């Protein structure tokens, strides 16, 4: 009986970490772009979809080496991130927040359609990096791929935090997120900073797609739901804060896992979204608390 409870706990912790890592890669990306532009990027899930589908077709179907396939996927995502930067920040310089939000929705929908044409609408997957055989701890089982997901995510996010705190470019990004006008005045190239945010954010999404596709599968239309999960996680933790996004992602994953374990899988999302409404109400800056809120400066979404 005790071993059963212990196994349950191990299983809950492992599933939380795996699913939480997946959400975190998206949530941190959402948060980065929000810091730089004040916009929620609805197309965030498309980074995941594009990289997952690219690797699935090149490595999974066509038999290319895994590293080459991953390299191609990263290039694809970088191009896509640059395109998004162009659409949402450079061309859309004088558009209301809601306008930019709709541009990202438009980009997400168009990308789904294009991906369904390039590949198809079926579910895709490729073999996990270290085989399918589960690792057993007492009665709990973990897929080796889950260890890859948790490990690589931890490295990526730690690296990102170091980058933001210790490099010039990272400091410039933080300065821009605090006050764009002031950043411009002290000579920080704001546009380049925005491009850098999109690039980093795209890379995180790409890593997510490459790591999780063997476990969760991917199809042309997966992106938008992932994006919704991602920005709810980011908002839960506090928009604009990287540790916040990470915390929000893990919390959502934990609540979902516990709900499924002790309750019903059909109700998995009910507690999550109830918690989100409550957190927004009582801690509008999220559980961890974001930094200065560009969104609050633009309270009116339709104002240009």
């Amino acid at each position: 009986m005790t071993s059963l409870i212990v196994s349950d706990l191990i299983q809950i912790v492992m599933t939380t970490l795996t699913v939480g890592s997946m959400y975190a890669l998206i949530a941190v990306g959402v948060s980065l772009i929000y810091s730089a532009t004040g916009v929620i990027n609805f197309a965030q899930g498309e980074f995941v979809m594009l990289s997952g589908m690219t690797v699935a077709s090149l490595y999974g179907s066509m038999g290319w080496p895994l590293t080459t396939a991953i390299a191609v996927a990263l290039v694809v995502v970088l191009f896509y991130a640059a395109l998004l930067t162009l659409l949402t920040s450079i061309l859309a310089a004088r558009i209301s927040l809601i306008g930019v939000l709709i541009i990202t929705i438009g980009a997400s929908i168009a990308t789904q359609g294009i991906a369904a044409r390039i590949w198809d609408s079926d579910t895709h997957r490729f073999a996990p990096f270290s085989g399918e055989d589960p690792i057993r701890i007492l009665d709990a089982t973990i897929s080796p791929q889950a260890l890859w997901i948790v490990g690589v995510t931890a490295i990526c996010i730690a690296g990102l935090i170091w980058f933001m705190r210790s490099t010039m470019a990272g400091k410039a990004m933080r300065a821009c997120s605090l006050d764009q006008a002031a950043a411009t005045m002290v000579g920080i190239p704001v546009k380049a900073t925005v491009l850098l945010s999109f690039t980093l954010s795209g890379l995180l999404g790409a890593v997510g797609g490459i790591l999780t596709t063997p476990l969760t599968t991917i199809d042309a239309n997966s992106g938008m739901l992932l994006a919704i999960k991602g920005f709810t996680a980011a908002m839960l933790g506090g928009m604009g804060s990287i540790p916040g996004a990470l915390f929000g992602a893990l919390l959502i994953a934990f609540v979902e896992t516990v709900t499924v374990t002790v309750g019903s899988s059909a109700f998995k999302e009910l507690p999550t979204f109830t918690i989100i409404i409550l957190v927004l109400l009582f801690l509008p800056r999220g559980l961890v608390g974001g930094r200065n809120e560009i969104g609050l400066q633009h309270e009116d979404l339709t104002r240009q």
Partner: protein
Amino acid sequence: MSILTFIKQDAVHLNTARVALFLTAILLVPVVFGIGYYLNMMIFIAILSLPAMGLSLLSGLSGQLAISHGAFFAIGAYASAILSTNIGINPVLSTLLAQMIVALVAAAIGAVVLRLRSHYLAIATLSFAIIVELVIKEWSGLTGGMQGMLNIPAMGALGREATSDIQYYYIYWPITALLLLFALNLSSSRIGRALRAIREGEPIVDSLGIQAAEYKIGIYIISSVFAGVGGALYAHFVGFVTPATGSIMFAIEIIMVLALGGFDRLWGALVGVVLITLLNEYALGFADYKKIILGVTLIAVMLVFPRGLLPGLIDLARSNKYGRTA
């Protein structure tokens, strides 16, 4: 009635004249073109205009974006469907009763989430919409679960029910026109002006003695009821509802409608619905291409006409006109 007393009479007259002219033209269409499949599309336009007008009212008057209109469309549809199918209430009555349910839910949710703004309000209303969708899927004893509800009675009363598209056409369009007139008048009423003042900056408004919170909840309820009426009309027209009715994707589609029609234009909402309906209809069989066309159109419209397609075109026409006269 009480609203009317606050409105400048000439605004009411102008609105009434425009809507009356519009409705006359709409009602003459089948007389000129006869009966055809296009009626089916026109009925959908009448139905979908309602949630779009509701959201336009909210975003136009308060500058805020809610992603809950799909959910209220679904609540209106399911409530009326359940009342008429399971309890046997007449569809006209059930449509009205359903709106009381919508208004109650909107009041409760509004009281909670309207303290938030901007992206936070958007995400809170999105969360609410996801919860509604889940409850509909799960409460299968009442809602039929994923399979939805079938064989919902057709719209009608006193033993006569609508059986053909042309009958629905002549029942639904006057309802839509009436609600459009109501929305236009509300927008130009004292209430509308007060809401715009709130949008500009609440501290000033508070000092003038306008109760910002109540006004905001009021407009949120009205705007949600528009969506609820649309839902009930939808249910009694197509005869079935599923959790896809009013899903998140539907809510996003309504936002797209506003992007095309302009965020603060009630007439624009109608234009947006026409465009989306035409696209949906002519892209049938090409779902992937439809997504590409829709996505690219949205991006292009936002980049070229940031305030929406219709306001953009109107501005363009005006500047040309002035250009010529000058």
